[in-house]
């Protein structure tokens, strides 16, 4: 009997040993989970480094970038606009009943516009795009990975980190603020429509009252923070897609994990960036 075993034998009764077994297995599971998490962040860091290194080398894949701007930007526009419109209408209806209760009905346009441009527009756009684009990038690159198309790109002397990842990430970064503007616009317009259906008010008057207390910094910083959301969505989508393993199940996993992780990190980044903006831009 080893020294350790003798100690266990002396101090831990068989019943207590049995009771400790589940705890030991839980600790092992937690340890494995932490290891995987650290490994994931490490691989993500390496991936980001490869993309950055590829980004500064010629050729700059302008055509592919334009194609991705269209794919990620133009094709997300209807969904983002629809989500913005729905949020604007719902916010208007919900805020109205609350403000009426406190006798602050006249504050409705300002409350609506302020909440849309400061928070609702950016976060809704971030989450909608992470759903549509994150899944799309994860599934497309995952499928390319398992069918050796990414290997074929590399075998033909083209850097896949630049051709596939960098172009998509840049397209996400550039398109998110523009999509946010579209979402903001639709939300304000549909907020006005919802309001005017209950109590007619001209659009000009609604806008004037809405933007009365808002400054340029209220508008710019929250809109530009969606560029960070774009970086997150593009980076995680490409990373999950390009590390796909296995067959169709692997592709499905990449698509799902891209959406889940990018949505999660968009929300976390929102919390951090809101604080950052409050400190530096308010």
């Amino acid at each position, binding site marked *: 009997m080893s020294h350790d075993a003798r100690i266990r034998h002396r101090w831990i009764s068989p019943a207590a040993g049995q009771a400790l077994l589940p705890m030991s297995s839980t600790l092992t599971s937690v340890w494995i989970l932490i290891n995987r998490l650290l*490994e994931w962040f490490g*691989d993500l860091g*390496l*991936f980001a480094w*490869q993309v950055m*290194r590829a980004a500064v*080398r010629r*050729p700059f894949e302008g055509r592919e970038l334009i194609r991705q701007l269209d794919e990620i930007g133009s094709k997300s526009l209807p969904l983002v606009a629809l989500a913005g419109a729905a949020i604007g209408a719902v916010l208007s209806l919900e805020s109205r009943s609350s403000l009426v209760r406190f006798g602050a009905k006249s504050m409705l346009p300002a409350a609506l516009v302020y909440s849309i441009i400061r928070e609702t527009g950016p976060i809704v756009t971030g989450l909608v795009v992470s759903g549509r684009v994150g899944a799309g990038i994860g599934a*497309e690159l995952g*499928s*390319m990975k398992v*069918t*050796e*198309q*990414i*290997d*074929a*790109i*590399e*075998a*033909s*002397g*083209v*850097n*896949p*980190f630049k051709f596939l990842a960098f172009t998509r990430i840049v397209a996400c970064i550039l398109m998110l603020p523009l999509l946010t503007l579209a979402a903001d616009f639709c939300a304000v317009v549909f907020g006005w429509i919802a309001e005017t259906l209950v109590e007619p008010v001209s659009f000009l008057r609604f806008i004037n009252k809405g933007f009365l207390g808002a400054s340029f910094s209220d508008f710019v910083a929250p809109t530009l923070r969606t560029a960070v959301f774009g970086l997150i969505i593009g980076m995680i989508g490409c990373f999950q897609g*390009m*590390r796909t393993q296995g067959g169709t199940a692997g592709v499905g996993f990449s698509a799902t994990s891209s959406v889940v992780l990018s949505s999660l990190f968009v929300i976390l980044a929102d919390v951090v960036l809101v604080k950052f903006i409050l400190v530096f831009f308010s």
Partner: protein
Amino acid sequence: MMHPEQEVLLGVEESAATPAIESSGGKSDGPAVILRGLHKSFGSQIVLDGIDLTLKNGETLAVLGRSGTGKSVLLKLIIGLQKSDSGSICIHGREINRLHLDAMNEIRKKMGFLFQQAALYDSLTVEQNVAFPLKRHIKMTESEQGDRVKELLAAVGMEGDLKKMPSDLSGGMQKRVGLARALALEPGILLLDEPTAGLDPITAGEIDELILKLQEEHDVASIVVTHDLHSAKTIADRLALLYEGKVLIEGSFQELEKSDDAFVSEFLQRDS
């Protein structure tokens, strides 16, 4: 866990300024490919355990062996898609294991790779697939590019399918297009991963004839990984049989047939 792409890119780097390969197709006077003591493992599984092979210019070498003996891995090591654990890979006299990515890409431009499942880009048409390497590596006008694509597709009998998507093609047609794409940059070395796998005997025969025709016309050095002994006999000058991660025997088909080794005899009999 690190991925093959990352492994290659993170490899210890030689200067990118190493001299470029001279002459057409990257050919030099020495052998096209020299492999020495090549080892590759995946975890505890040893796939290649000291491979020594030489491919001369203009020669076709068929690599045979049981499934899982690392034949496809060997091709991926040669083109730098995976990194060997140890050993040396020389392409036209240049050791690739320590090459910078840009220098490796220069070497890749001189090699054509036909993947087992063709690996055509499924969002691009047949024409765009073949034009892909041309667009990125050769300065030419749109019309010159179009002519070159048509010429390449005509060489593989696919000139009538320019606008089709890969999903509209049969397995044999996809391999033909894959072959046209592999030949786009006029490579000096062609790596073919099971070019006839999954094809009916007639289509497989057509692919063999096509490879022979292209070898005659382009005078490329080829490594063909195959399970198809009939195909290997038709297209290869030399055969190498892998067994337990090593080259068990190497030589002409007749030399292999004369071997006393029990595994060689069984392999040839089973496949014939």
